[in-house]
């Protein structure tokens, strides 16, 4: 498809050059916005569109939080509001919860003193600071173009230290599409981050559509996994130390394909198929010709089409019943590129001895009307296991963090 279009343009250009030299050449067509890229001609009047967050945030008191539903024995409450576009979550050694932004520029800290919580904007003026990770007293932040470290920040939230650059120049071309980064500290002491595909369905450069790792001591980076369209959530199995991650499949194929996926990267160097193969068995209509899905590493599970899995964490706490331990919580941001919307919840995924993944709803109630626009009043982004075993869930649409706890 792409090839024939550019060939057509070349022919047209040649004809123009021969016949109408005096005319001003037409400007090169601007690329479609990345969310529209790959849309077919007969989809061009589609009213499906990504859903923008409410950038002021909304007070929890104005929202139907009583509609939230958790399994029997669990309780969900508002942990903190007033954190516009609350995205990724990281837990400090002393209990501070750090919360990131994507379209905005800030990192917030939630502190809790005897149940009284305070929300403070601790970092400002950052460039799409979507990724946050914490290790040994240092907060790491992944912006669009760099990863920085803030040493000892928990002791000086009011006067945070200057950023120490871990690695710079992560976005040398100001890439389109998925420019925001998730960040997590691996069991090997290296920081893992994604570099998303620069569009919906395009041929990525070698460093794009990857999960990478950087050694914070040396700044040396390497590609860890490739063929990953965009992963905005990963964690390591506490038993095997293997990396698990969520991945968003391409849009504009159909309502039900391809499905978004959950992956296990048992070692460095695996390739999960983008842009050639999606969901393990669906060759891409444009890029898949002449390729086979067998060339690539298969997903561990399919999660649903356009369901938008984001944050993923293994449950390592002791508060929840035993069946939750060592399973994963996955935040589903929810679909936009689908006629009838789905997701907008937190699922629990457990992995059987045979490797089969079983998914069960854990936190629901954000979705109001699957056919409405917008279909929901809130959108889960990330999950975080607290020291007491409770689970925090961020919501970027409203700028709220919820807490799910369990009492026998």
């Amino acid at each position, binding site marked *: 498809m792409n090839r024939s279009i550019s060939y057509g343009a070349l022919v047209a250009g040649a004809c123009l050059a021969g016949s109408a030299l005096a005319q001003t050449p037409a400007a090169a067509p601007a690329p479609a*916005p990345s969310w529209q890229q790959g849309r077919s001609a007969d989809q061009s*009047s*589609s009213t499906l569109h990504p*859903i*923008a967050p*409410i*950038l*002021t945030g*909304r007070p929890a008191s104005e929202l139907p939080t009583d509609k939230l539903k958790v399994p029997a024995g669990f309780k969900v409450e508002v942990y903190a509001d007033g954190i*516009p576009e609350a995205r990724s979550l990281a837990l400090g050694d002393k209990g501070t919860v750090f919360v990131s932004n994507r379209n905005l520029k800030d990192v917030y800290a939630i502190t809790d003193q005897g149940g009284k919580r305070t929300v403070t904007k601790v970092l400002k003026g950052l460039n799409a600071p979507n990724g946050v990770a914490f290790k040994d007293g240092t907060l790491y932040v992944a912006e669009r173009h760099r990863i920085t470290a803030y040493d000892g920040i928990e002791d000086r939230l009011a006067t945070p230290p200057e950023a120490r650059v871990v690695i710079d120049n992560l976005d040398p071309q100001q890439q389109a599409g998925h420019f925001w980064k998730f960040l997590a500290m691996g069991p090997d002491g290296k920081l893992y981050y994604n570099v998303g595909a620069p569009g919906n369905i395009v041929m990525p450069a070698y460093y794009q559509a990857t999960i990478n790792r950087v050694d914070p001591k040396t700044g040396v980076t390497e590609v860890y996994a490739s063929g990953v369209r965009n992963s905005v959530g990963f964690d390591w199995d506490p038993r095997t130390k293997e990396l698990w991650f969520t991945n968003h499949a391409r849009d504009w194929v159909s309502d039900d394909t391809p499905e978004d996926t959950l992956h296990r990267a048992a070692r460095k160097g695996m390739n999960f198929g983008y842009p050639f193969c999606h969901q393990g068995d669906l060759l891409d209509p444009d890029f898949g010709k002449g390729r086979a899905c067998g060339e690539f590493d298969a997903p561990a599970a399919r999660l649903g089409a356009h369901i938008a899995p984001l944050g993923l964490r293994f449950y390592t706490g002791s508060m929840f019943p035993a069946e939750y331990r060592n399973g994963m919580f996955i935040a589903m941001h929810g679909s936009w590129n689908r006629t009838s919307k789905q997701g907008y919840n937190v699922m629990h995924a457990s992995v059987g001895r045979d490797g089969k993944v079983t998914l069960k709803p854990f936190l629901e109630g954000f979705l109001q009307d699957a056919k409405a626009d917008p279909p929901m009043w809130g959108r889960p982004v990330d999950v975080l296991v607290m020291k007491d075993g409770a689970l925090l869930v961020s919501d970027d649409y409203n700028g709220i963090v919820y807490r799910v706890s369990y009492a026998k």
Partner: protein
Amino acid sequence: MTIAPTRWRRSSRRRGRLLAQSALAVAAMASCAAASAAGTDAQREKAAPCIACHGDEGRSVLAEIPSLAGQPKQFITTQLVMFREGNRKNPVMNALAAPLSNAEISELGSYFAAQSAAPAAKPLAADAAGAGRGLVEKLGCVTCHGAELKGQQHIPRLAGQRPEYLRTQLLGFKAGTRFDMDGNMTAAAQPLTPADIETLATYLSALP
């Protein structure tokens, strides 16, 4: 009702100076405010600095100044946040938005969204209206701006907007100089000729 309460003017000399320097603002202050049908007194007081340029209840009578009345709340709040953060650039708006809290921005959004939209410019001749409608359909404006071009969520209402403002925004998008959160309008404006922009601005401003 005073249009610009002295308490507000005292609170920021810089903002006051910016406004005082604006002939547009002075012109607007000369017009008298009608009693508001929607909104609380507190909201009207908060909105007073806006009304100085954007017109009574946000219905602009000034060429380059957009109407805010009847815009979707999320459009108003998104733009105010982006002015405050410096992503969208305009010296007057950046200065006015700088001190606003999220709650204040949200309140302003509620107030202006609740006002009835400005009356449309006088109806166009059939051929001009047909040309405008044809362009709107060809470009797919309704896909995002809604069937009646009244906006939705973070997408602005275009119907009845000031034509001069629409023209300036479209030229800015075409030039790639107008802030664009998701790249939609920059892409959409690329094929437009100056004549197309004129046709669109005129057509949209005449829509009820």
